């Protein structure tokens, strides 16, 4: 195991969590000459070792064996646990935030730099190292065509999706739905094939299979203690600690370590996404080619607080979305190749809360308020119109919404009473601890978050660098 070859102390910065944020911070600080250690609870997989079966992808790449639930068990939380975090399993769609998102962040946090102009150079820097591409029209599948046709029929506006990918070799017959379990041809621009590769070449130390369980600060030194997957315990220390374990991971670590700020774990958002399936007479083959193609780009949708995307998933996930069991289930599943799918993602307004139980397990309290339900219903109504206008025989709403944009819990802001982190990304409670990932989001932007997470992580790295 790597810990034998790696020093446990003497680091300038110890980073917990290797997702979009942790990897970018590690890359930037390492490049700036700091001695960094990156800790990750999940395992390291690469193109040749990614699990091939959905069963194994769920188990090996996510917390809790695939899915976690909120206390009401009406949102399925997908929380990546793998070196590279969400960048390994996500759909890799990149969107810059718009004025609406940034203005609401400034209102909520009091921070002035939340605007397109001030953050443009950070987005640009991400684009220098993460290749992106508009999903090529020629490789969009029939699911995307139904989406586009439905939008035209109903006078809605849509736009092609941009994805962090390069050379997917669609002409060879590749189907990108497969890369939800890790890209086996290194085309998806995940952290290990981009910034981590660069940083490791430059001396970054990484310890995977190590779950941070406790964080303490002693005499100007941050100590992260925890457990390796094989049950052994371990401890690593550095002058500064960066928390990039995502909303649930950060809140859980801080609460279990006795941090007291009353806003830790609060203001938690998920963009609940409801996948709606529709059965067509002819085959749709939603799993083929570039399985996503379009997003809504309709100002009315944006104002109404929801967005739509054409999307799909492999068989286990689709089976779980269908109603019933036995014959009822089989009646639909035998026509899986005739299913189209559109998802609505709600820009949720009702803040949830992450707390911990006596055993230290994260408890996710999150529900939708009236406004969220209105947004949701508007989105579902638009989807009905899309499917009805394109000849769907039957519309089947997914049985459970999914939360996979996990945001907030250590929100950023100018007021130490209502925010956990200051505008330089330092915790109010302890200025040697930084939070750089999606947990600092002050509210739900209603836009795919990963691009902004990476951009803000670069900005956070500049603040951290100033301390050395």
């Amino acid at each position, binding site marked *: *195991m*790597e810990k034998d070859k790696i020093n446990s102390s003497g680091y300038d910065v110890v980073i917990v969590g290797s997702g979009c944020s942790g990897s970018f911070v590690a890359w930037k600080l390492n490049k700036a000459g700091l001695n960094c250690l990156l800790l990750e609870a999940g*395992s*390291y*997989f*690469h*193109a040749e*070792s990614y699990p091939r*079966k*959905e*069963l194994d992808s*769920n*188990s*090996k790449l996510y917390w809790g*064996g*695939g899915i976690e*639930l909120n206390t*009401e*068990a*009406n949102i*399925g939380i997908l929380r990546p646990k793998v070196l590279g975090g969400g960048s390994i399993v996500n759909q890799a769609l990149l969107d810059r935030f718009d004025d609406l998102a940034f203005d609401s962040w400034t209102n909520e946090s009091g921070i002035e730099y939340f605007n397109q102009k001030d953050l443009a150079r950070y987005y640009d820097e991400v684009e220098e*190292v993460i*290749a992106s591409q508009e999903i090529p029209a020629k490789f969009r599948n029939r699911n995307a065509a139904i989406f586009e046709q439905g939008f035209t029929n109903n006078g809605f506006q849509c736009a092609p999706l941009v994805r962090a990918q*390069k*050379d997917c070799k669609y002409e060879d017959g*590749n189907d990108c739905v497969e890369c939800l379990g890790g890209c*086996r*041809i*290194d*085309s998806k*621009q995940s952290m*290990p*094939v*981009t*910034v981590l590769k*660069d940083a*490791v070449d430059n001396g970054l130390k990484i310890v*995977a*299979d190590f779950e941070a369980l406790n964080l303490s600060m002693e005499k100007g030194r941050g100590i992260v203690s925890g457990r390796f*997957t*094989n049950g052994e315990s371990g401890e690593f220390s550095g002058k500064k600690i960066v928390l990039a374990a995502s909303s649930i991971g950060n809140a859980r670590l801080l609460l279990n370590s006795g941090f007291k700020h009353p806003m830790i774990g609060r203001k938690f958002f998920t963009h609940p996404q409801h996948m709606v399936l529709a059965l067509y007479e002819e*085959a749709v*083959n939603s799993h*083929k080619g570039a399985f996503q193609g379009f997003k809504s780009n309709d100002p009315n949708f944006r104002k109404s607080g929801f967005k739509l995307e054409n999307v799909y998933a*492999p*068989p*286990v996930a689709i*089976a*779980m979305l269908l109603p019933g*069991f*036995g014959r009822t*289930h*089989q009646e639909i*599943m*035998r026509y*899986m190749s005739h299913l189209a799918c559109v998802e609505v993602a709600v820009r949720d307004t009702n803040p949830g809360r992450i707390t911990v139980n006596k*055993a230290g*397990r994260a408890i996710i309290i999150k*529900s939708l308020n009236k406004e969220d339900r209105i947004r949701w219903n508007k989105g579902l109504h638009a989807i009905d119109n899309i499917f009805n206008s394109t000849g769907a025989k039957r519309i089947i709403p997914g*049985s459970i919404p999914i939360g996979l944009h996990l945001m907030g819990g250590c929100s950023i802001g100018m007021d130490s009473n209502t925010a956990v982190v200051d505008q330089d990304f330092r915790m109010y409670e302890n200025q040697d601890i930084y939070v750089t990932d999606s947990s600092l989001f002050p509210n739900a932007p209603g836009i795919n978050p990963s691009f902004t997470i990476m951009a803000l992580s670069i900005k956070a790295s500049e603040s951290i660098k100033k301390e050395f």
Partner: protein
Amino acid sequence: MGNNNKYIKLPLPDYQEPKKTVFTRAHLKGVEKLGRVVMPEDSDFPAFSEIGAEKYLNRMVDYMYEDDKSAILIILKLFSIMPQIIIKWTMSLIETGAKWQGMLGAPFRMLRIALKGLIFTVYYSDVTENQTIHSKIGYDAKIVM
């Protein structure tokens, strides 16, 4: 940066196996009976019992949180002694209860995810040597290496 090499590999060890869960004969009997209810034999679909689920359960259950795992094992034990018809009735009740709003429906939704998840995950992952399920449902996603 990017994919100039064939594949990019960091100098790190590959993944670590978690602790193995031990299934008793009762647990396996419970899975088998639940499988017969959730995925019965049909002209298109092989029955759940044909796929030999016991060989694959560890690949799922070993990764669950301890308290979730314990709860599942208790339910499977119960199923092992319940008549099939009662299991079917229980599953119908769970589907109905899962529609109830708020905390009232929460236990039913948890059970629905856990029990259907157990069966569907093993079944639709097409794990067996003869791998027929994906072809039956027309799922042929691939990556050409």
